[in-house]
Each structure stands twice: as structure tokens, then as C-alpha cells.
């Protein structure tokens, strides 16, 4: 996983609440092989005739290279589909600042080195206003080391993130590799449970006489 330390880039405002994974990456369009780039906001990006909608924020010239997305409450609600994070990264978006995130979407961000920043209340109001005012003309800088967002229109804005999540992103840790270091604990749990609740440690079809 690519580590995240600091990022300087254009911030694009999509300030609605409850932007869902069907909007971010429609399931009907997913293809095997992770060609994720074209999925991003596929329906909102295009008009009914299939042409690009010039009014959609990420289609506007200033925002085509955006690397920060700014949104409202409950960003990423809906499906657990990780393609809704992969398509962000495929389009160069490495940080989403939202008032809140859906639980699974936030975890999927952390798994992929995409920084999910929760900013609420007045801090969010102020930041959103600055992003709208900047209108893609000047970049913002997100610093995960110092936990600050800087950019045009005002002083740096501090943000909080769980220390464990911060370390995961800063170090780009391989989550599976870390867990495998605790294989001994897992094996011990399995051995204990095979005694205490043996029905949990076997999944066997009683009709399948060949393996009974």
C-alpha cells in the first residue's frame, strides 16, 4: 500500500450528504480486471445522451486534476464495494474530507491508502467555504504528519484521526502481513474453540457421506 504523508492538490466540492457507492461506482458498469478509472461518478458525469456534462464538478477544467474531494455527511453509504475506493485512486483522488463516512467505506479507504478526514461543525463549514471560494484555482495541502489542512482563504485547519489509522496510512502497512505475525494466537484460538464450541470449527454437510 502506498504510504500517505502529505498531499498538495486541487480540492473539489461535492457538498451533498449521503453520496452512495452506487453514485460513486455503479455496479452495473464494473468489469473484471479493475479498469476502475471510468467508473467514477459515471452517471452524474454524463448526460442522458452519453456526452460529458460540463456542469458536473469533476468535468470542469479546474477540477479535472483534483486530488481532494470534499463532501457532506455519511459519504460512501450503501454497498461494501471496494471499487468505489479504487476508482477514486485511479482518478488521482487520495484524500476525502467529509463531515462523516459510512463505516465500511471508511475502512476501505484505510485499506487503500486513501486518507478519510472527518471534519464537522464550524471547521467543516469554514473549510467548505474556502474550497468553494478557491474554485480549483489554488491547491490545498493535507499534512497527515502534522494533522493539518492548509490552503487559500485562511489559517491551517487541524483535524483528528485515530492514532492507529494514522500510523496505518503513514507507514502504508500491509494489514495481512501484520495479522499473520499473530498466526500463533489464531491457531491457539482455533484449538481452544475446537474443544469448547466444536460446532464452530467444522462446517460439514451431513448429506455428504464421502467426508463423514
Amino acid at each position: 500500500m502506498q504510504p500517505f504523508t502529505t498531499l498538495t492538490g486541487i480540492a473539489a466540492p461535492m457538498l451533498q450528504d449521503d453520496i452512495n457507492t452506487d453514485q460513486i461506482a455503479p455496479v452495473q458498469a464494473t468489469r473484471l480486471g479493475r479498469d476502475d478509472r471510468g467508473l467514477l461518478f459515471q452517471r452524474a458525469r454524463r448526460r442522458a445522451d452519453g456526452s460529458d456534462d460540463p456542469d458536473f464538478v469533476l468535468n470542469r477544467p479546474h477540477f479535472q486534476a483534483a486530488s481532494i474531494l470534499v463532501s457532506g455527511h455519511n459519504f460512501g453509504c450503501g454497498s461494501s464495494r471496494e471499487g468505489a475506493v479504487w476508482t477514486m485512486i485511479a482518478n488521482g483522488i487520495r484524500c476525502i474530507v467529509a463531515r462523516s463516512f459510512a463505516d465500511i467505506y471508511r475502512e476501505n479507504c484505510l485499506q487503500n491508502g486513501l486518507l478519510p478526514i472527518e471534519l464537522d461543525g464550524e471547521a467543516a463549514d469554514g473549510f467548505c467555504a474556502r474550497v468553494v471560494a478557491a474554485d480549483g484555482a489554488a491547491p490545498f495541502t493535507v499534512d497527515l504528519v502534522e494533522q493539518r489542512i492548509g490552503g487559500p482563504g485562511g489559517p491551517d485547519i487541524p483535524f483528528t484521526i485515530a492514532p492507529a489509522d494514522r500510523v496505518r496510512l503513514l507507514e502504508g502497512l500491509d494489514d495481512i502481513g501484520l495479522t499473520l505475525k499473530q498466526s500463533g494466537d489464531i491457531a491457539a484460538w482455533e484449538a481452544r474453540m475446537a474443544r469448547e464450541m466444536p460446532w464452530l470449527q467444522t462446517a460439514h454437510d451431513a448429506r455428504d457421506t464421502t467426508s463423514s
Partner: protein
Amino acid sequence: MVRPRTLFDKIWDAHRVARRPDGRELIYIDRHVLHELHAPHAFERLEEAGRPVRRPDLTVSVQDHRISTLPGRDDLSNPDGAPFLRAMREGSRRHGIRLFDLGDPEQGICHVVAPELGMVLPGATHAVPDSHAPTVGGLGALAFGCGTSELEHILATQVMALKQPKSMRIRLEGGLGPCVTAKDVALRIIAELGVAGGRGHAVEYAGAVVRAMTIESRMTLCNLTVEMGARTGLIAPDDTAFAWLQGRPYAPRGALWDRAVGAWRRLTSDDDAVFDREVAIDCSSLEPQVTWGTDPSQVVGISGRVPEPWPGDAARQASVQRALDYMGLAPGTPLSGLPVDRVFIGSCTNSRLPDLEEAAAVLRGRRVAPGVTALVVPGSTTVKRQAEAAGLDRVFRDAGFFWGESGCSMCAGGNGDRGRPGERCVSTTNRNFEGRQGRGVRTHLVSPSMAAAAAVTGRIVDVRQLLDGGL
């Protein structure tokens, strides 16, 4: 003194393998159910890293999201889905994972197949790379939906690294009137709490209404937990659950069964357990619910009207207005009477045998209204076979419904089953998001009997009035 614990705490504590240095806990996953939309990516990445599947014997695969529902289907019946089906087949074979493939007599939607075969057990943990994983909370299992990276993590380690969610109990008191179902209860809860109201919480459903529910209804209730943003949802297992499970192919048998039931009887929240949040809802006056907007919280009873854009802040008004524009509805319009183009009965929310029975009871002796396209897709091939044995397929077909092969179908349209722009679709699914059932399709979520009533009248109507002869 022992700290009083919730049902969730008891299952969580029993499955805690270790605490990680980063503060997350490693929670053992007893049953891992995969489907073809996501597992192929995870197989590929696992193989790139040279990691084996730790417990293929505790893992099963199904084909559901991208599979055609056409009679006589094969891989190519839905060409877009064919690569997923093949990759799932090959990946499952390489890793020694039992696959419920196209053509298997027990294929179906992951959340329907696993419980009906008895793979889901009370007090067990369960993971599926799908947000509706908590469906099986209806049996008292603790289930987590996950993304592809977490899926890969579980394949390699059989654990998930999780932060413990907060706890919420939703007490459902009173009783349900005729034609008022778990679906209506769930939609009402989402309306009260909002689509983010459960964020970060594990929900326990309790109360007289829950105790009186069948297991299938409990699964419908738990299925919709994610639609209020909650991490998971579950119901304390009881004799109804034990009776439902006993004798199913993967359930324990003999002395092991007795021992398991003994342990399962302890799976209740202690009387003095403290929840981070408690909610009580009286269901006595609940009527059948219909969504009017583009998220499941935008719902009213069938006697209700499309609301005015709320007198909330500008952002809220804009979002309601956007929903009304998409749905082609004006504020103040009664839901009852809206013309319908398409009806879909199916999905992990409402496709089990009692759901089909509920719809068939309305359809018997009636015909789908002219101009309405109506589909019913059983949740599993087992459900389909049982329904056919009971003659339900004839009821649906005689009424003019398409009787499909099992799969997720029009819930998300990932298999090519979708509506046309501007169509108004009455659906027993879980999400009325913009474009989910096809570009421009206007989805109204309802229960199976309400969907059947819409199909035969060509309008959204109160099924109770239809059955009383008042329509």
C-alpha cells in the same frame, strides 16, 4: 462482580483472538461466504502475494450478483457477468472452496443460501463481502459486511481486524396489523433514525414484535440494518431459531446439537446490560410503508403523501427537491394511486419462501395489470424448488409474472435485469438509490404483498384495501 454484557459483547468476547498493537481487535470469523462480484479480485491478490487460504473448509462461494435469471441460463446468458462467473469457479477450485455454482440445486443469493443450509449458527461470526451480510443476524449470528481487502484478509487469516462498535438496542413493541411486515418495520426504523442514524453501532433488535416474528422476517429486519448506516444487527436466538435450524444440512447433529443449543440459550443481553443508545418504537399503528424518495429513509405509510421539502436547512431542502425531481413527484401527492410500470419481487431482503407465499396470496385469481412488467426471482434455487412444489410458480405465472432463476437480479441490476429510464418500479429490494435499478428508474421500496398489489392494480395501493374488496 461480572460486568453485565450485551448479546453482542458475548459473541464478540468469545471471538476475540488478540488485540493488535494498533488498538484493533482480531475477531475470528467462523463462516466466510463469498460471491463472484468481489472474490475473484481477492483470489488474484492473494495468489500474487503467495498466500494460501487458511480455512477453505469454513469458506463457501456462491454465484449470485452477476448471474442471469433466464430459464436455461448459462455463463453467457449475461455476457458482462461471464468473466466473473468463470473467475469465481476457477478461484474456488484452486483454493478448495465449495462453490454453489450455476446449475447447482442449492445455488442462490449468499444471504439466503447460507442460513437455509444451516451454515449460519447462533453465536457464530459470519463475514460476506456485501453490506447486507447482517441478514443472518436474524438467527443470532454476528455478521460483518466487508470490502475486498478485508475479504482477502479473512481468506489469509480467518480473522478480521476490527474496532469494537458502539451498541444500540431497538425495542419493537406492540403488534403488527394485517399485511404489516418486517419490511415495513425496518423502513419505519430507518425513517426514524435516518440513513446514518446507526453509524458505528451494532444493533440488537428486541421486543414483542421481534419475538413474534418468523426467522425469515427476522432476516428481513436485520437485512436492512445497513440502510441506517449501522455496522451490524442481530437478534437473540430463541426456540424459534433453534427449531428453524435443526436438521438443516450443515447444522450440528445429535449430542453436538444438544450441547450447542445449551450454549445458545445463554446468548441474550443481560438484564442490566447497558447500551450506548436505546430506541423504542411502538409498531401497533404501523401501516404498510412505501418509499417516495431516493434513500430508504424517505418513506411514508401508504395513506401518506409525498412531503414538502422539509423546512430544514438549505442543503436538506435541496436534497429532498433533488429526490422529488428524480422520482417525478410533486409535494403533497398521495402515494396511493401512483401508476406503476414494473414490479420486482426478490433480493436478499424479500425472496424467501414466506415472502413468495405472501405475494402469491394476493395474486391468486388476479392478473398483472396491462402495461406492467412483473418479475419474481426466488432467493435461492432451493426456495424456487420449494415454491414450485407448493404450486406458487403457477400462481405467479398465471398472474402474468416472469418466474426467474435465482440471483440478485434487479436489486442492483448487476446481471442485466433492469428497468428503462423514467419507469416507476415497485420493488421488494433494499435500496431506492438513483439509477440502481437502471438509469432513470424510479424505485419505490415495499413489502412483497404491497408489490403484488401494485402489479395487479397497476398502481401503488394499500394491499389491505385490495384484499378487503375495497378496490
